[in-house]
């Protein structure tokens, strides 16, 4: 029984520790050299919103025809004295970038295929080519202190996922891609 108790404590530690090492405060987030504010129509303009930790953006190994990027995102909610940290991984399917789809459309159009342009948009709406996963999270007070708060996985996911085409949540992975590769994902041929 004691072993199970100790094991569960270890597991809890493993879950909490990764994001704890990346605790940030409201003042840190306003440092534009380290964090980039991600424009959103939902922001009130009073310091709330999403921030990208620029130093955390890194590409990781991915299967053929894909690229993967990991990064830490912080969602600041100053009025609630809360900062929600998220460690995310995005997977990019290279043959679904908008430029790739438009080029493929133009090529088949020249060969007599009359598929309308709107079908490209519908294809992107069906599968944007970007899928995201929240791998880890941490909750902090405005001053950067760890906050013990249980947040459901579904609620964490809803902050930045799904990256559907035509949705504001689609812009963040494109920005990440640009940081990692110097070109927007949708500009890839």
């Amino acid at each position: 029984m004691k072993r199970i108790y100790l094991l569960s404590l270890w597991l809890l530690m493993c879950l909490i520790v990764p994001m704890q090492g990346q605790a940030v405060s409201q003042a840190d987030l306003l440092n534009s050299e380290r964090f980039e504010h991600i424009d959103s129509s939902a922001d009130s303009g009073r310091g709330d919103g999403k921030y990208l930790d620029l130093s955390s953006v890194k590409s990781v190994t991915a299967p053929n025809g894909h690229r993967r990027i990991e990064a830490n995102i912080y969602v600041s909610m100053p009025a609630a004295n809360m900062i929600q940290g998220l460690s995310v991984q995005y997977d990019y399917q290279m043959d679904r970038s908008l430029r790739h789809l438009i080029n493929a459309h133009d090529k088949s159009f020249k060969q007599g295929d009359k598929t309308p342009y709107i079908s490209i948009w519908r294809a992107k709406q069906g599968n944007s080519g970007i899928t995201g996963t929240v791998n880890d999270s941490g909750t902090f007070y405005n001053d950067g202190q760890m906050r013990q708060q249980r947040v459901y996985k579904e609620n964490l996911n809803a902050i930045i996922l799904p990256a559907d085409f035509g949705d504001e949540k689609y812009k963040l992975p494109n920005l990440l891609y640009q940081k990692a590769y110097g070109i927007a994902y949708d500009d890839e041929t």
Partner: protein
Amino acid sequence: MVQRILMLALVLLAFTMPTEAITYQELKTSPQFKLVHTRSMNGPMESGGLYIYLNTYSIEALRYAPPQYSLRGTYYVVMDTSYQSTIDERQLTVDYDTNYSLATLIHSSRIMNPSPSMMALIEASESKSGLAMTEVDVAKYTFDGATKPMHYVNDTRKFPLNRNNTIMYDIADAMFMSVYQNHFDDIVVQ
């Protein structure tokens, strides 16, 4: 004499009224009705489908001033589910501005910039579609064409039609296609 005229008018009215009604069978079989959108519903509460037919003979051009166009037409929403078997008749008016069609946006982004940004293109396509619509309820029928009482909620204001609104977009595009034999988003304004 007056009574006879009134009786005759009533008889004529009785004959003419049902001809305006529509049956599901007519929608499915008559070539003037084009199926423009289908959606199957297989939820725990309701199963069946939603089918939208456009009356291609009803479309009239209200404005032809390229790159701007305006069309009006009648469409039918068929709800064929375990709970509902109804046909809603509606009249739709759409203003089209092909200055904002996808083909124009793609074309102009290529001309303005040798290496155009797809993000700017996405933003342009989301900020304005070039489509604006207004619609009114006309009638409601059972599948065999009998009229059903309905609550009319008609807002005559025009509002922008987003490309994400696939149902209304498909109807608007089908109207454009039947009159001009081209998809709205494929028209290029040079």
